[in-house]
């Protein structure tokens, strides 16, 4: 897969997907989508597609798409989709022209909110509530990205088949966020938010601050493990290989 194709997978299935989590973490986002009754489909020519459905104050993400959408936005390529994420291009609306106002005025408010939480500044990281949301979203993006990278990243596709089957639980103590990756032992994986039953390996961060520092590249992970700030147990190869895959994320998402 080309760089742009992999990046498009991450932008859509790991990054934008987090709108379904953001409204549970951020009251402002919850308020914004409270009255929305709308489904938006993103389609890249060649196969990649996803659907964001807003209804009854919730947001659900679907990929591959099964349900119809009110608005269909088409992209000629992965590069075209990526350009939209970088605000250098616009999608081609194929359906839902009457909702263009929503797309132009309302929808960007939540994507801007997502962007706000994913672009921390030193000042923002002084805010405990911000740190919590940033940490949760970073964790969720990471686990969703693993699934995509195993499928489409050249390195991820080499690593995946070497990994044993099993579930890796990632938890920030004392009360979350939590996420998990379920490896199928054949090179694929699915990810979820929350606590998995009977994990094969567990990676815990002693605090939100520790997790946040790691996710934002401000913490030496090996040192933190040795000092007990990050703990792991169980099938350590799951953790080690996941860490290698995590390191592929910045190749595509800055």
């Amino acid at each position, binding site marked *: 897969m080309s760089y742009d194709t992999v990046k498009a997978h991450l932008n859509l299935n790991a990054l934008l997907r987090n709108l379904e989590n953001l409204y549970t973490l951020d009251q402002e986002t919850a308020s914004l989508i409270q009255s929305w009754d709308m489904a938006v489909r993103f389609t890249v020519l060649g196969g990649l597609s996803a659907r964001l459905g807003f209804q009854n104050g919730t947001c659900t993400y679907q990929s591959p798409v099964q349900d119809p959408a009110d608005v269909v936005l088409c992209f000629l390529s992965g590069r075209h989709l990526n350009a939209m994420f970088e605000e250098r291009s616009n999608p081609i609306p194929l359906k839902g022209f009457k909702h263009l106002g929503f797309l132009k005025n309302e929808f960007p408010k939540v994507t801007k909110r997502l962007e706000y939480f994913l672009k921390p500044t030193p000042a923002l990281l002084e805010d405990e509530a911000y740190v919590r949301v940033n940490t949760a979203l970073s964790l969720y993006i990471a686990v969703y990205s693993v699934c995509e990278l195993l499928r489409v990243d*050249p*390195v*991820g596709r*080499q*690593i995946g088949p*070497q990994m044993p089957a*099993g579930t890796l639980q990632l938890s920030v103590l004392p009360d979350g966020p939590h996420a998990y990756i379920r490896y199928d032992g054949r090179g694929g994986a699915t990810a979820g938010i929350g606590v998995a039953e*009977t*994990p*094969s*390996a567990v990676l815990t961060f002693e605090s939100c601050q520790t997790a946040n520092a790691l996710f934002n590249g401000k913490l*030496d992970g*090996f*040192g933190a*493990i*040795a*000092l*007990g700030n990050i*703990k*792991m*147990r*169980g*099938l*350590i*190869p799951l953790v080690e*290989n996941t860490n*290698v*895959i995590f*390191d*592929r994320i910045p190749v595509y998402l800055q």
Partner: protein
Amino acid sequence: MKTYTYENSTALFKRAVKVIPCGVYGHFSPAPYVPVEAYPFFSDRARGARFWDVDGNEFIDYMCAYGPMVLGYAHPEVDAAFLKQHAESDANSVASPRMVELAELLVDRIPTADWAFFARNGADVTNMAVMVARSATGRKKIIAIKGGYHGTTPWMQAPGHHGILEEDLQHVIRIPWNDIKALETVIAEHGPDIAGFIATPYHHPVFADNELPAEGYWQKVVELLHKNGSLVIVDDVRAGFRLHLGGSCERYGFKPDLIAFSKAIANGYALSSLVGVESLRVDAAKVFHTGSFWFCAGSFAAAMACLKELQRLDGANLMESLGKQLTDGIVSLASSHGYTMKVSGELAMPYMRITDDNNVMLQQAWCSECTKRGAFFTSHHNWFLSTAHTEADINHTLDICDEAFKALKNSSGAQP
């Protein structure tokens, strides 16, 4: 029984991370220690089968420096041989007679060896072996075993690891251990390109049960590879001289073309050796491979003393016997506490795992309880016996193991 704490180790590690990447890196990294707070990071001194950490805690050492310690730390004969040579000449501008003497000793003791080449670390000679195989055959591809470890040179590493290029792995084909069908398939697909096959004498991966060669496995490997015009390389870096003084292939009854040794060869002094068959002597001579410290003579002298002492003690049988005493004792204790302990690999360097869960968490918890009481066990790697371990050491270790099982049972979530 007192359980250990590691205040000085932790303080030293905090200093280390400021000036050393990872604090302590590579296979000494604390990362696989689970939980990390149960383990020491730094050792002050070592004697016989024991080491003392920087907090003064005493450990019976079942990792043996991850293999190099085979006769016991600070072994008087080996150290005397080293010190005598070191005082006379260690680093020098020309080679030492000790190098020739050691090569003669290896050629005499190791049936496969018609010549010997020396370096410092295991990877130096696994690399040399692959270069010799490629030079001798004029072919590129190397068959290796999935999960097999031959050092950290790029071609040996797993894909995706930092600093590794896709191209580095282009000519390495990994197949499962003990799988003759997979080997036949690879030979059928890549036969004219295959320079050689490299594997440890038995499969001793980390984080997994170890596997001995199936009946006739190695003999078939040699037959298939030779029929294809390819070479057979045994990476005996970890097991060499612990299972048989003639190389582990003697234990399993086959003759490879090249054997890489290190770890136990000089009881802790830095040395490795590649030995090979006569037909590869010229090819080995043509390959340029060297290092600044590869001719230091002290290690040659230490190796000769070490190998002679191993022979005098019948080291391989002694370590196997000690390993049996240890593993039988642990299996029995485990059973008495309601746990099932599986032993795999060779008894002189066993891999042990509690099988009552499927995620090794019980094993990790139990090993940590043992270590906190003075029996240094890691949960991810095979252990090592040495000739310095005594029956009394093992009996004391079993007392520790007993307490550790009790602690495991008392801790929440660790019921069998």
